[in-house]
């Protein structure tokens, strides 16, 4: 292949390449350091001003220095050039520098390519339903830019006035994209997806909210000010009643007198359980938290699938940190009974307390246990103590001292779920009853449109689990005793001042919250059906389309058939617009006239119009006066001012032509 000639780009091509690029920058503008889009936009303005000759373009040395400085700037800011944000910032800046040196058509194409790249970066970053139309719009702009860049206005062409203007480019790009839509949907549905990733781009270190693996008094109340969604739960069949909606997360065993921690006991045995009560089948769509907790309704029965595992205390842990919305299906029971005794080791472990702390509460615990007949009665006594002891439920409790439990029980008596759970478990352990703190969420908002629960960070909660002989681990929520309404109502209802102002505002406007519920339902549908469309969904869809036991082969066949159908359709549709238009009646009879004359040896030259032909005829064959007048009539009918009765005249002309006979020689 010979080297193609260097073609200077058109001015309009430059404008459009710049438009596409700026649109790409805008798509990514909130995910890169603020100076990068500014720099890129300055380059765009610089280039456009240079095109209208009000500014000079930088020379190669300055451009090289600029490029190096910008790469260094990105490297310093991100400490790496690998990673989505750093890569996007780099792409943005280098696209701008490329635009600065854009002269040829090829350069303009490269800038449009960079704009498409920026689209990809934006897609990898976020896939919201709100942004999807923006992405489509950007793809459209890029295609139109391709059309304009590839169009070279010609100096010698006589038809330049006809022009392929911006509007034509946009319309053409839109049409082409609409034509490709069926294929896009077909490929989207049938193109085989991969089960996992080849490699991972390091994600930016975004601060995500969520439960951590420790709990100290007050840590959960920080979380409850957040209105962000923790997860959504879709139930098959009826959902559990409000008092059973405990979403179990990290289980905390180790207590240093102030902070509860998870344990590193990985070798401990899971106690076998007997499941009681109804079975709940549900799916959870977990929002990214950068943690590894999978939340579940109380106790999970059966396997959670390959992506997560159980710890010995029936906590679900993901094998990877949750960095994107994750779906999983579970079966749960909210009531269980242990079938074996708690192992001595576990018993020892879950009754441990720091010796040097909280002496007063431990003393109280032992005293209370001694006055009760059984562990169960003791649990009731402690709960009763919380209920009647002047305790109050608040999100803004005073700070607790070194002996946090003593301080809480005997001094402040103001606390949040964390305080109650911590104090309660501490009291249990002091009396020799195995107990542990469970963190997670309580309740959730029912979305009637999408028929699912939205569980928010503000629903974060902590409670206790206590080992009772004959029953095993039993869920006890001391907070519910102090503030029974917590079971039925969210934090927002109980402590409206605790949450942020916008969330409170939304909460107080029923129409707004119903609107938001609708919006959330749409988003959930989008996430479930579009964003999370997977290989399994593909197979399920095929099954619904009537393929029994579908597999990869059926997928391939369905895809191939669709592809061939689409190709035929496109070929037919695009080809159709390229076919000749059938000439109208007047033109047809004019052609018939010309054919008659041709047979008589009088051929109209391609370049001759009817008048010129008539003049020629008159010279060659003066006897053909009627033909001459017919040609005149045709010319009037075709090019003259449209008059009423033209149709009749056309018919007359038709008739005259069919009656006409032309002799070969005069």
């Amino acid at each position, binding site marked *: 292949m*010979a080297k193609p000639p260097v073609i200077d780009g058109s001015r309009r091509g430059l404008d459009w390449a710049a438009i596409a690029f700026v649109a790409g920058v805008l798509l990514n503008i909130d995910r890169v350091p603020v100076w990068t889009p500014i720099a890129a936009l300055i380059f765009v303005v610089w280039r456009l001003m240079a095109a209208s000759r009000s500014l000079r373009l930088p020379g190669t040395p300055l451009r090289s220095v600029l490029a190096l400085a910008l790469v260094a700037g990105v490297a310093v800011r991100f400490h790496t050039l690998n990673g989505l944000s750093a890569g996007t910032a780099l792409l943005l800046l280098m696209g701008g520098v490329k635009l600065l040196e854009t002269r040829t058509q*090829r350069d303009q*194409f*490269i800038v449009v*390519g960079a704009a*498409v*790249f920026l689209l*990809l970066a934006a*897609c*990898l970053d976020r*896939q919201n339903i709100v942004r999807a139309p923006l*992405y*489509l719009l950007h*793809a459209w702009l890029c*295609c139109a830019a*391709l*059309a304009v860049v*590839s*169009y*070279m206005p*010609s100096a*010698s*062409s*006589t*038809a*330049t006035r*006809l022009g*392929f203007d911006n509007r034509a480019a946009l319309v*053409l*790009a839109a049409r*082409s*994209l609409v*034509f*490709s*839509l*069926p*294929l*896009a949907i077909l*490929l989207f549905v049938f*193109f085989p*997806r*991969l089960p996992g*990733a*080849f490699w991972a*781009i390091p994600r930016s270190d975004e601060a995500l909210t969520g439960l951590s693996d420790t709990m100290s008094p007050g840590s959960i109340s920080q979380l409850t000010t957040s209105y962000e969604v923790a997860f959504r739960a879709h139930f098959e069949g009826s959902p559990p009643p409000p008092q059973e909606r405990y979403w179990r997360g990290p289980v905390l065993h180790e207590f240093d007198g102030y902070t509860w921690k998870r344990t590193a006991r990985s070798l401990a045995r899971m106690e076998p359980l007997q499941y009681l009560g109804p079975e709940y089948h549900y799916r959870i769509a977990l929002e990214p938290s950068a943690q590894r907790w999978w939340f579940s309704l109380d106790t999970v029965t059966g396997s959670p699938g390959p992506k997560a595992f159980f710890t010995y205390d029936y906590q679900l842990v993901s094998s990877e940190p949750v960095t994107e919305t994750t779906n999983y299906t579970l079966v749960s029971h909210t009531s269980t009974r242990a079938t074996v005794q708690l192992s001595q080791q576990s018993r020892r472990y879950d009754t441990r307390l720091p010796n040097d702390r909280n002496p007063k509460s431990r003393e109280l615990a032992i005293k209370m246990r001694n006055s009760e007949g059984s562990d169960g009665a003791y649990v009731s006594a402690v709960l009763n103590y919380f209920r009647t002891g002047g305790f109050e439920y608040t999100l803004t409790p005073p700070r607790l001292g070194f002996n946090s439990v003593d301080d809480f029980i005997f001094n402040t008596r103001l606390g949040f779920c964390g305080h109650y759970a911590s104090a309660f478990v501490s009291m249990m352990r002091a009396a020799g009853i195995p107990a542990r703190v469970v963190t997670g969420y309580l309740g959730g908002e029912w979305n009637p449109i999408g028929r699912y629960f939205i569980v928010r960070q503000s629903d974060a909660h902590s409670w206790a689990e206590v080992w009772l002989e004959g029953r095993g681990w039993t869920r006890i929520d001391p907070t519910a005793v102090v503030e029974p309404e917590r079971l039925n109502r969210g934090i927002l209802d109980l402590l409206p001042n605790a949450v942020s102002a916008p969330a409170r505002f939304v909460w107080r406007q029923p129409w707004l919250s119903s609107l938001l519920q609708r919006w959330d339902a749409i988003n959930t549908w989008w996430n479930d059906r*579009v964003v*999370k*469309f997977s290989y399994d969904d593909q197979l399920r869809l095929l099954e619904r389309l009537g393929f029994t036991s579908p597999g990869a082969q059926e997928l391939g066949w369905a895809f191939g058939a669709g592809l061939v159908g*689409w*190709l035929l359709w*496109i*070929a037919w549709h*695009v*080809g159709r*617009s*390229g076919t*000749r*238009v059938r000439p109208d009646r007047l033109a047809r009879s004019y052609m018939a006239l010309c054919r008659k004359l041709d047979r008589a040896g009088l051929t109209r030259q*391609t*370049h001759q119009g009817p008048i010129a032909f008539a003049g020629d005829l008159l010279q060659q064959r003066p006897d053909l006066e009627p033909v001459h007048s017919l040609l005149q009539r045709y010319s009037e009918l075709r090019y003259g001012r449209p008059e009423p009765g033209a149709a009749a005249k056309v018919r007359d002309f038709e008739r005259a032509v069919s009656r006409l006979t032309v002799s070969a020689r005069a």
Partner: protein
Amino acid sequence: MKLSLMRTRLRARMARWIRKRQGPDSLPLTLARRRLYILPTRTGVGFCLLLVLMLVAGLNYANSIALFLTFLLTGFTLVTMHQCHRNLLGAQLVGATAQPTFAQRDGTLSLAFENSSAVARFQIAAGVGDAPTIPADLPANGFGRVELSVPAPKRGIVQVDRLHLITTHPFGLFRAWTWVHAPIEMLVYPRPHGLLPMPADYGNKSGERSLINAGADEWLGLRPFRDGDSPRQVDWKAYARDAPLLVKEYSAAGAELRIFDFATLGKLGTEAQLEQLARWIVDAESNGERYGLKLPNRFIKPDHGAEHRHHCLAALALVGLEDTSRGEASSH
């Protein structure tokens, strides 16, 4: 070096094969499916690579939106392939006329296209052989013209071997093209060159008149500049006032009658003789004189006017090539 040689050979072979495959063409010519070729352009290949990258990224991160956009743009690419093909398919090359030109100048080959479809065809570019192409836009049910310059190194007939019609419209991702092997010829007059004075007025025995004086005859008016006109006759003052190039024309009434004889210039050698004759013909015509031409095997009666000038110059162009019996040369 060797590679470029190989490439040239390959191209020549390809050209031969295509000529054989398509057969000779005659105008008007409708571009049929069978003769259209289509391949992605460099931009198209780049775009496809971009799509592959998007696909890999989309699959790797199970990113549905990226995948959807990839598929959308894949479809778009295939659609543009059809559109590009359609842009050329069915277009008609209705005329290819080359105005005669003088040797060592570029002649102009004017191509006329017709578009009898209801959709405009943009950017139909044409070129001679492998030369760079020039685009034209054809409106729906309309015509378009491209003017190509054809180098004319020496007098005689330049055969335009093959035309290259090409389009990358609408999106520049594909290139559809065809070759046209129509018999297109361009007549090349000898270069008007030589300093010998014109032979004496044939009807007037009074002797030679200088060229300068010849211009001082009866003023007729101005006419547009024609190829070969002497710059001396151009009305430069008018040109300076933004008028087109005009040539001052003088009356032929009572004017000279000259016979330009090939044989009288015997010493110069054939080509130089022809060039000198061409010079005289051009000058005599622009002076408004009547002139005849005497060639070894042919005599053109004295006359004047554009047509006469063409006959004379064409006769000069074809001296020694007449065995090929070109129309214009032998008809008079």
